[in-house]
């Protein structure tokens, strides 16, 4: 079964909070994430993972009434949190997905302390079930 693990971060002023960290804190965090992805790949559970550009670069698009899409620039006052990145893991049980989410949540932040980030875990829907 596949799960999407979503890492949300505060909207801030259009960039990510990490921009304000000390260089060594930043380095530790980046190294942690690279190692985590490498480990998940090695464990055979990682299906996909991506990091996203910051909220300041986000656009909201609607079909609108004309022929051209309606594009709105940020900042988006209604959203307090923004998706910073996600993992899709392929595991046997939900508990295994939770365990991976907890590992990601513990990524080091300012002062080297675990961030304890909230990671949203959602099951990825599959195609039609096998016919029996």
């Amino acid at each position, binding site marked *: 079964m596949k799960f999407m693990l979503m890492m949300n971060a505060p909207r801030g002023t259009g*960039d990510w909070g990490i*921009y304000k960290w000390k260089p060594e804190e930043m380095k530790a965090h980046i190294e942690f994430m690279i190692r985590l992805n490498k480990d998940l790949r090695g464990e055979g559970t990682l299906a996909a993972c991506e*990091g996203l550009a910051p909220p300041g670069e986000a656009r909201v698009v609607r079909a609108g009434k004309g022929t051209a899409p309606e594009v709105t620039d940020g900042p988006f006052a209604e959203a307090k949190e923004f998706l910073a990145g996600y993992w899709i893991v392929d595991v046997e049980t939900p508990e295994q997905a939770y365990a991976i989410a907890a590992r990601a949540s513990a990524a080091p932040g300012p002062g080297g302390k675990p961030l304890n980030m909230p990671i949203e875990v959602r099951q990825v829907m599959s195609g039609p079930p096998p016919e029996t």
Partner: protein
Amino acid sequence: MRANVGEHLLRELSPQVLGAVVRRYGDFAAAEDAVQEALLVAATKWPDEGVPDNPRAWLIQVASRRMTDSLRAELSRRRREAAVVTENADDLVVPSLDSGQEPEQEDTLLLLFMCCHPALTRPSAIALTLRAVGGLTTAEIANAFLVPEATMAQRISRAKQLIKKSGVRFRMPADGELEESLGAVLHVLYLVFNEGYATSAGPSLHRVDLSSEAIRLSRAVHHLLPHDGECAGLLALMLLTDARRAARTGPDGELIPLDEQDRTAWDRDAIAEGVALISATLSKGQVGAYQLQAAIAAVHDEAARAEDTDWPQILALYGLLVRMSDNPMVRLSHAIAAAMVHGAAAGLGLLQALDADPRIAGHHRLAAVRAHLLEKTGEREAAIASYRLAANRTASLPERNYLMMKAALLAGGP
């Protein structure tokens, strides 16, 4: 999965075989399918039965038989539907098989012109070129671009349909069109090469190496058109850029800028080949943009240490490039070279003109270059703001981490 036996040979032959079949039957999409089937038969038979004496003729024969079968099926379907059939199956199915006289070299080139036709979008042209000329499977191409196989299959099939619809002919472009057609081919190969760089930090170890593939194809085109200066220039540019590959990222894929790279890790053979090629080409006259870029890459590669770089020569070469093309990225590099020769303030002055150019004003590279120059002139706060702006705008994760770190080091680092 193809057997290792003859895999290299099959990839080498596949554009020649496809070219010959398209030449004979005209229908690119059907020919492509027929050649794929023939390659599959070869991959299963050759390892047991041995490679035939004339493998190219063998493949053309098998592919032609498939074409004949499908043409006959198509004709009888049309007869059944009582449509007006003017063609005779035997006219369409030319029985004379490969006599060894066919211009297989030219076929590869014609195939490239077809796959890189301006009627196609660039992503379609790239996919089609890798498949029809590069001999890669759809799965391999999909994997290289990190998209699902079904997506890539669709992209290729749409490209084939578009070729059919737009009536692109399998023939040598007329004299007046040759330069434009070749320019489109070189541009597609250049994009494949750059894509290899963009995806090189990704997760897959078994991915086809697009940069090497672009070099292989450029080498083939250079072999076919040895007197074309821009083709030689592009091949030299690729060799001289790719030579630094091992040094441009660290063990975790982190970005290492040119002036901090371990130059002993550069590929000396590739540099020697690239330098020899560009030197021979430049002395022949008719200088083009790829040649100038290759010459610049050669100047960088010939410096044993970053501080030995001949910046005045690089500045002069960028001066020529700026005059040749109205490309804002070239102007940006020109500003960097000017800063190295005349000081950071001179470079910053040149950047001002680029702020008014909508093609580059919001680009992360403009912000990144400005940040570097502001750091050099000691404008710390402005440099930090520019580094962060550049970090926000880049789509490359290693580059974002690098720019973010530069800002952090200036803001409160040791």
